[in-house]
């Protein structure tokens, strides 16, 4: 028995120590959104940065709401999300140093080919949602306090539809990430607001297609913020700043613009050097 126990202790110690020895010396943790990570942008761009600087970037991809919370708790060095009002509040509250514009993509409304609400080809997003509500056609919402969810709620407000009263009827909140919501929404022939990047790289599209696009209000601006080391002294401010400097530099911006899926550019770089 004792021998068996000793063997197990040794095995356990080995397992744990093997875990820590794998970690690279210089890395930063970036709290970002599923829409950015799922599109494949980071897989494409981050190796360039690591090659140049030797800094490994570890991305934790969650909804914007959770990413903000992680950064507030000091569990990330850099915040890379897409909801400007929340980001500005994050900086104003002293949790972030400064916010920089990085790039934008756009949201689109996808829906079933049959299009029961008849919104195909419409340009004005809020008007399209009003028609969806009028037809009581199923609509799948993220319902997870993410940037996409916040954008969607803003559009409903413009459309003058009170969706909270409809939750559970034709308006269905999945409370999960973009991909999971697309899977669910496609399964129930629902309309869905999604960012174009996730949609283009998404594989399980069923007979859904993009029905509404091009409204300027559907612009989706991404920002990057260094977490304030005064709030959280362990934040790797120097390495994090290097990452931010690179992302908004000509080289980083070029890499973002060069990322394509099926020949389509997903993100348009628009950093204005010297601050947003």
């Amino acid at each position: 028995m004792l021998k068996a126990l000793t063997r197990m202790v040794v095995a356990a110690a080995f397992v744990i120590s093997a875990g820590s020895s794998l970690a690279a010396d210089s890395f930063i943790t970036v709290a970002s959104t599923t829409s950015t990570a799922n599109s494949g942008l980071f897989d494409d761009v981050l190796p360039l940065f690591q090659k140049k600087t030797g800094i490994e970037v570890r991305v934790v991809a969650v909804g914007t709401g959770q990413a903000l919370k992680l950064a507030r708790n000091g569990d990330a060095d850099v915040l890379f999300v897409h909801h400007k009002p929340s980001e500005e509040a994050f900086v104003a509250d002293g949790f972030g140093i400064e916010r920089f514009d990085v790039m934008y993509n756009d949201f689109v409304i996808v829906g079933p080919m049959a299009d029961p609400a008849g919104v195909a080809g419409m340009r004005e997003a809020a008007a399209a949602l009003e028609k969806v509500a009028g037809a009581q056609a199923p609509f799948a919402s993220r319902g997870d306090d993410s940037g996409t969810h916040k954008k969607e709620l803003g559009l409903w407000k413009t459309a003058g539809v009170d969706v909270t009263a409809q939750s559970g009827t034709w308006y269905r909140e999945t409370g999960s990430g973009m991909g999971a919501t697309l899977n669910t929404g496609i399964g129930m022939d629902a309309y869905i607001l999604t960012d174009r990047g996730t949609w283009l790289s998404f594989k399980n599209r069923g007979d859904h297609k993009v029905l509404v696009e091009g409204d300027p209000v559907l612009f989706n601006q991404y920002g990057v913020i260094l977490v304030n080391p005064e709030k959280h002294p362990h934040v790797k401010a120097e390495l994090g700043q290097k990452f931010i400097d690179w992302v908004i530099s000509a080289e980083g911006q070029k890499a973002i613009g060069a990322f394509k899926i099926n020949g389509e550019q997903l993100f348009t770089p628009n950093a204005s050097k010297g601050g947003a």
Partner: protein
Amino acid sequence: MTDFGAAFAAAFRLVVTLDANLVEIVLLSLRVSLGAVAIATLIGMPLGAIVALFRFPGRTGAVVVLNALMGLPPVVVGLIVYLLLSRAGPLGVLGLLFTPTAMVIAQVILVTPIIAALTRQVIDDLWGEYAEQLRSLGAGPAQALPTLLWDGRFTLLIAVLAGFGRASAEVGAVMIVGGNIDHVTRVMTTAIALEVSKGDLALALGLGLILIALSLGINGTAYVLKGAAQWRSV
């Protein structure tokens, strides 16, 4: 349902080509889950045996709680461990969040009650059988504890395997405390969740098939080893 065919094809392709990413993810999964099970065994088995052998006030309550904790929801355990390990939490200074160690900690919490509860039942039964005999040899519960654990080792294997099953299959806890970071904390279950969220259902199911095969392999190995050891000890 062409997805099923595509899933088998995806699994086959990944295994045959020994896809480097897959190997990395499988090894990390094994390291985290086997590590957690090893630690949980060290804690859970003596704990279960003590509850089985000793009479103390509140023992019935302890048994019920132990049994109930087998059903700890992984996502809740993940959340608790996150709050403890977060930089804003009490253990934040350790900087363990988003590391394999954090994942091991969460799984130890999930697996220990399973091993302890099953061990308690096994030892309880054995004690019922041998109590008189052991007492006549002058052995009380304290002396009987190691004997019974050793005697019941083949039956107790099922407790360890049940624990491993829980650890290797759960996604809720490791997703929150690990963060599913590529090349750092991505394991089989979080990789499957990621592929589902990308809508690549075939690849997700393919990874699932590999995970099931892996579990089958480990249980098969345990069965063969147990058989060999039992044969030797006869």
